[in-house]
């Protein structure tokens, strides 16, 4: 751990002069020694409450080996991991009302190493769903739920303006409703690329690349709704189901061979969740799709991205593996292949990469829990990540998840790493094609 990163801020340590805790007098200086309370003194009620939920069972299986604690991205900036959740719940913590419930980003790094298959990807949504039903949701997350339910996107933007970004793409972006013919590719753009200013940059870049490659594609425009996967993982399963039904109905109206998505969360939703609701489509993340077209793409990448070609020094680019593309779906190579193809780029790997990639903090609802997470950790996960990128001497932090550009750009500013540029791979490709 970096120097100066105490897990508990000194100002948060309160020393009571006299204190009786659960019937035990623990008055006195904080380092007085006590006999540990025997675990069997506690009621297992709270643990059983979690395990009784469909999806919550595996919390019981933990045998405390702590492999997860070493890899949990939240533990690196705070005090967290499945083992700790298990232990605290065993010792009486009510996970249903604890702030801990909202810190897991469902990044899946713990499950990767856990010998007992304690599965936070199932436990967290199950418990959160109950909290949501009881109305115990952090307000910022509730706002995102409300906006998604009302407007079809968590940013609260008007549904009818979903394709407005395309007007300034400089190339045609056909909308399937107007096109009235089958297409090869249905491009599901996603909420952040449709509405967030930095997401739109990536969407426009993608439109130009698809056009240059001569892809026969169309988008849904105002018929497209948020995929809802992150809302599901944050506990609003009903909202996810509603969106899934609406999106599947929209997809089914048109004829296409396969779907290409801008974001890993959408990829995950369409690949693993939508089939459960009758929406079974061939879906590719844009990185894999573009790698398929590498032979055509490569000669188009004319402009080297390094600052000065004469010095021969290349641009140091590092890549952040999105949890939902990498660990959740096993795609580590396509983004790297694209980056290596761009002239003038040197790919530098960070220590935490590929299977052990760090998390940006945006998954599992984290995108909409910024204040909550900030109140319960030392620094944002995105801030930890940009520091790592800077430590490795990267000039550009390349990403391929629409949640990440704004998260990392904010983090670069707040940590004083303003010089670190954050770019979607789409933007880098587009830039190089301009040569």
């Amino acid at each position, binding site marked *: 751990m970096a120097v100066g990163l105490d897990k508990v801020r000194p100002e948060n340590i309160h020393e009571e002069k006299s204190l009786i805790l659960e019937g035990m007098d623990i008055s006195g200086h904080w380092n007085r020694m006590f006999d540990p309370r025997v675990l069997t003194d506690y009621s297992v009620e709270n643990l059983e409450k979690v395990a009784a939920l469909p999806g919550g069972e595996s919390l019981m299986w933990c045998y405390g080996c702590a492999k997860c604690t070493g890899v949990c991205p939240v533990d690196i900036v705070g005090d967290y991991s499945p083992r700790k959740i298990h232990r605290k719940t065993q010792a009486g913590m009510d996970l249903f009302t604890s702030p801990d419930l909202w810190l897991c980003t469902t990044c899946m790094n713990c499950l990767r190493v856990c010998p007992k298959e304690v599965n936070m990807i199932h436990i967290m949504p199950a418990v959160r769903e109950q909290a949501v039903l009881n109305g115990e949701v952090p307000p910022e997350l509730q706002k995102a*739920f409300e906006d998604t339910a009302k407007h079809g996107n968590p940013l609260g933007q008007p549904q009818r303006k979903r394709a407005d970004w395309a007007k300034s793409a400089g190339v045609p972006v056909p909308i399937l409703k107007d096109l009235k013919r089958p297409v090869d590719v249905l491009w599901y753009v996603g909420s952040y690329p449709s509405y967030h200013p930095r997401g739109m940059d990536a969407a426009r870049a993608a439109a130009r690349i698809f056009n240059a490659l001569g892809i026969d594609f169309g988008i849904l425009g105002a018929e497209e709704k948020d995929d809802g996967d992150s809302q599901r993982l944050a506990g609003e399963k009903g909202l996810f189901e509603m969106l899934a039904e609406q999106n599947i109905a929209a997809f089914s109206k048109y004829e296409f061979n396969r779907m290409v998505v801008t974001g890993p969360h959408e990829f995950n939703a369409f690949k693993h969740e939508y089939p459960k609701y009758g929406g079974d489509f061939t879906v590719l993340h844009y990185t894999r799709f573009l790698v398929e077209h590498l032979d055509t793409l490569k000669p188009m990448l004319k402009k080297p991205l390094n600052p000065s070609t004469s010095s021969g020094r290349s641009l140091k680019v590092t890549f952040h593996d999105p949890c939902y593309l990498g660990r959740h779906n096993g795609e580590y190579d396509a983004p790297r292949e694209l980056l290596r193809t761009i002239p003038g780029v040197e790919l530098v790997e960070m220590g935490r990469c590929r299977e052990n990639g760090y998390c940006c903090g945006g998954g599992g609802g984290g995108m909409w829990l910024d204040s909550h997470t900030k109140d319960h950790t030392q620094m944002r996960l995105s801030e930890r990540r940009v520091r790592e990128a800077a430590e490795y001497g990267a000039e550009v932090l390349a990403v391929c998840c629409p949640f990440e550009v704004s998260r990392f750009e904010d983090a670069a500013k707040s940590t004083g790493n303003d010089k670190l540029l954050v770019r979607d791979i789409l933007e880098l490709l587009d830039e190089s094609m301009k040569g």
Partner: protein
Amino acid sequence: MNIVVAIKQIPNLTDELEINSEGTGLDHDAVQYVLNEFDEHAIEEAVLTKESAGGSVTVIGVDTTGELNEALHTALAKGADKAAKVTGDYPRGTDSHTQAKLLADAIKGLAPEVVFAGVQAADDRDGQMGPMLAAHLGMPYVGVVTGVTASGGKIIVHKEYAGGVMAEFEVTLPAVIGVQAAHQPPRYAPVSKIRQIAKTAKADELSGGEAAGAGSTVRRMFKPEAAGHAEMWGDNADEVAEKIAGLLRDKGLLK
């Protein structure tokens, strides 16, 4: 306290609004219908009143879309106890006069102590639903209410006037209250909960009578027409400042 909330569905204003081919109204089939935002406040205030003073909340509306259940289930998920709908041959965009008459007939049988309604709706914007309901029911009406306190068979309502002036009224019951805003923002009903309720809940169906007639007719409806055009002065601050100063000088506003 026996509380009834009268609700109404209106076109979703975040959608593209289409005018019908006659140019006399909206193309109702091309727009999506949602619950009137002021009615969301009326439901919230009703549930808050129930939570503080006890009693029950019944939510009722005229089903003009065949989709009213969605709004009713949402209200139940927020804490209403019962839901009812008036059904019959009432098309989308049925005028507020007809809806008020139908609702009044239905509400009579519910013997309410207080009826909440949204103070206005974004479709006809005449703010007449509440007053007409009150007239049909023979009850007093107070509108533009931003908070209700119930105690001992009476309610105190907080009413807003223009220019930030506020007043409190003691209202003898039964009465109809036009809610401008609940005293806290309408709560979120998780879609998970709404979907659970949708599986089991059943709204009482009441068949309504004749349409009452709108009381007014729309002769022409049209989208805003551009008159003149704006001139863009670019983004160079110095040049733009120079031009603004020049313009003010030309108009004699600067010497």
